[in-house]
């Protein structure tokens, strides 16, 4: 496998970002971009910033408008309204060639008639740089992307990963304002994909060029992005660090798009969330809601803790009792389908009978509310469950979202 990319220690050019006199801190800024194709709205008032040296991932399903944003930043598409600013300069009306952005296309779009060297040198050639300067830059970039052995080859003689590295080097040659990656790993197999995105992440940290990635793969987004912007149907749902969007999703869409999420409806009552008969203590989380407000309780399968004897760990907040419905091993972890009993009021003196009789989930009556839980392998090995086991269910972390069922969202 390819060794870790590294610049030679004597290389004076550590940064491939353009030299600038004023440091604004914001590399690229998109302000209230809207776009329609024919009559169909594709983007609706999208705004975000990319900081100097930062990598931002635009995450969304196909048709969410993420590619259109990228094309608008690159200058390949005109927005109907709004503006694009690169390093403090409004480029909304500039054609693509005057913007100095680097686009890494999904197909890489390497020039088939040019060798690796010539592809990389293209940006300098059309800028009429001197031959000596061209050769030096190409040499440094070829070293940077580890293609010394392939410099005389043509694109079709290279693997997908190598082609991608040529594509990156080709844009770095002219010190781009910002790098735009359009589904950079879409055309690669799963293994190469994981390998390459680590490489690219390391490379970007090294060259210090701000970048925007486009992907529909949440795993990729979490790994590549300093921040993630989740797009849904042409508008921005949430923008934040991977930790923020994953652990504190702002909307139901974000919660469900970024990994699996359980969703329960509840009502806020004096620092608790009531879900059916269950009462979940949530002092901190309910602070921004008023009493009696309807909320959605969102939690990830891995945030569910189960206990056969009602003794939940310290960090877990008790939610309800439940019955194991199905246990399945999914490779690296175990997945459990649990039916929650949210209909029975626990008898008084809960400690006396922690796992009171519940009559949910009989073949005749399926009244339990289904949730999904996952457990890591070691835990799955120490405590085994089989369908029909009664468990206490708690949550280590969760988030509350306002429940707009009647009022139109947005």
């Amino acid at each position: 496998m390819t060794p870790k990319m590294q610049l030679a220690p004597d290389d004076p050019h550590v940064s491939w970002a353009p030299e600038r006199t004023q440091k604004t801190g914001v590399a690229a800024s998109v302000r209230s971009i809207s776009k329609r194709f024919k009559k169909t709205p594709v983007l609706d008032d999208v705004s975000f910033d990319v900081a100097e040296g930062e990598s931002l991932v635009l995450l969304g399903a196909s048709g969410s408008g993420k590619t259109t944003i990228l094309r608008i930043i690159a200058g390949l598409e005109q927005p109907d309204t709004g503006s694009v600013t690169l390093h403090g300069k409004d480029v909304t009306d500039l054609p693509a060639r005057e913007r100095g952005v680097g686009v890494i296309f999904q197909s890489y779009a390497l020039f088939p008639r040019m060798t690796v060297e010539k592809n990389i040198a293209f940006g300098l050639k059309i800028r009429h740089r001197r031959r000596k300067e061209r050769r030096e830059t190409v040499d440094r970039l070829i070293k940077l992307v580890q293609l010394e052995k392939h410099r005389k080859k043509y694109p079709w003689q290279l693997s997908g990963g190598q082609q991608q590295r040529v594509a990156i080097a080709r844009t770095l040659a002219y010190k781009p304002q910002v790098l735009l990656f359009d589904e950079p790993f879409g055309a690669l197999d799963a293994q190469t994909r994981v390998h390459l995105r680590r490489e690219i992440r390391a490379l970007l940290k090294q060259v210090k060029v701000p970048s925007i990635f486009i992907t529909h793969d949440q795993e990729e987004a979490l790994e590549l992005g300093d921040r993630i912007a989740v797009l849904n149907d042409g508008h921005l749902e949430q923008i934040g660090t991977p930790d923020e969007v994953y652990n504190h999703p702002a909307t139901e869409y974000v919660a469900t798009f970024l990994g699996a999420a359980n969703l329960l409806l509840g009502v806020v009552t004096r620092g608790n969330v009531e879900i059916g008969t269950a009462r979940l203590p949530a002092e901190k989380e309910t602070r921004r809601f008023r009493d009696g407000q309807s909320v959605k309780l969102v939690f990830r399968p891995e945030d569910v803790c189960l206990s056969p004897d009602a003794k939940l760990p310290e960090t877990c907040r008790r939610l309800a009792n439940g019955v194991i419905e199905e246990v399945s091993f999914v490779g690296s972890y175990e997945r459990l389908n649990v039916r929650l009993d949210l209909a029975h009021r626990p008898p008084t003196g809960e400690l006396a009978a922690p796992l009171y009789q519940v009559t949910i989930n009989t073949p005749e009556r399926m009244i339990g509310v289904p949730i999904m839980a996952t457990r890591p392998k070691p835990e799955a090995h120490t405590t085994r469950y089989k369908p029909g086991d009664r468990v206490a269910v708690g949550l280590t972390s969760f988030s509350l979202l306002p429940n707009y069922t009647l009022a139109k969202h947005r």
Partner: protein
Amino acid sequence: MKITAIRHVRGFDIARPISIGVVLGIMLPLVFLPLLSIFIYGTSKGLGTFWSSLIAPEAIFALKLSMVTSFWATMFNVVFGLLAAYVLSRYDFWGRNAVIVTISLPTAIPTAVAGFALLLLWGPYGTLGRLLNQQQVMFTPYAIILANIFVTFPLAFGVIKPVFDTMSRSLEEASATIGATRWQTFWHVTLPSLRGAIVSGALLTFARAVGEFGSTILVSGNLALRTQTAPLYIFAKFNEGQIEAANAIAIVLALLSFMIFSVLFFARDWLEFETQEA
């Protein structure tokens, strides 16, 4: 390419030799033998006769004229075909399909009709020819070029256009984002991908133009040593009963077309690679 056929019968398949035999049997009298007879008859009176017929001033002139007029017609049609293919595959405008159909129309028009139409327009009493006064175009080598252009008009376009259509737009977009102007993109990125199509388009056009007879005989006037192209020379000499003279030129034209065709055929892999990569 590996050739495979489904086995329909057990053991020896009689359909195989029969069908191959029928194909060859039809081709023999229709294609092989006529071509062969040119060479057999042409050299039957010895190579000396062949050579002297070939270097007759009229013959040399006819060959030269054919080459030169075909060359200019090819140049024009390749450049125009390139432009037309670019415009028609990159821009959408009202009447675009009508233009595509019109460009391809000369393929279906009988060449004699084409020559006649040119005469009506550019002839001494034609709509435009009337305005030319002393500088008549018809019955000069320019008329031959004009006729060749008309007849071979769709050939280069027809080869180049599909390559444009299938060419990935992202190459040109990549070039633009890197900072290339429209012209730099065309010169460094688009044109190299079209190399194969341009070469085969040019060869097809040239081969067709060299052999053009129907329209040329109407517009050129068929004047020996002035406007007589090689095919016209063959026809004229044949009519005069000088079979050897006609035959010598026929051999040259046949060899030329063999050459062009083998370039097209054997360079096919190279040309196909070109289009795939585009």
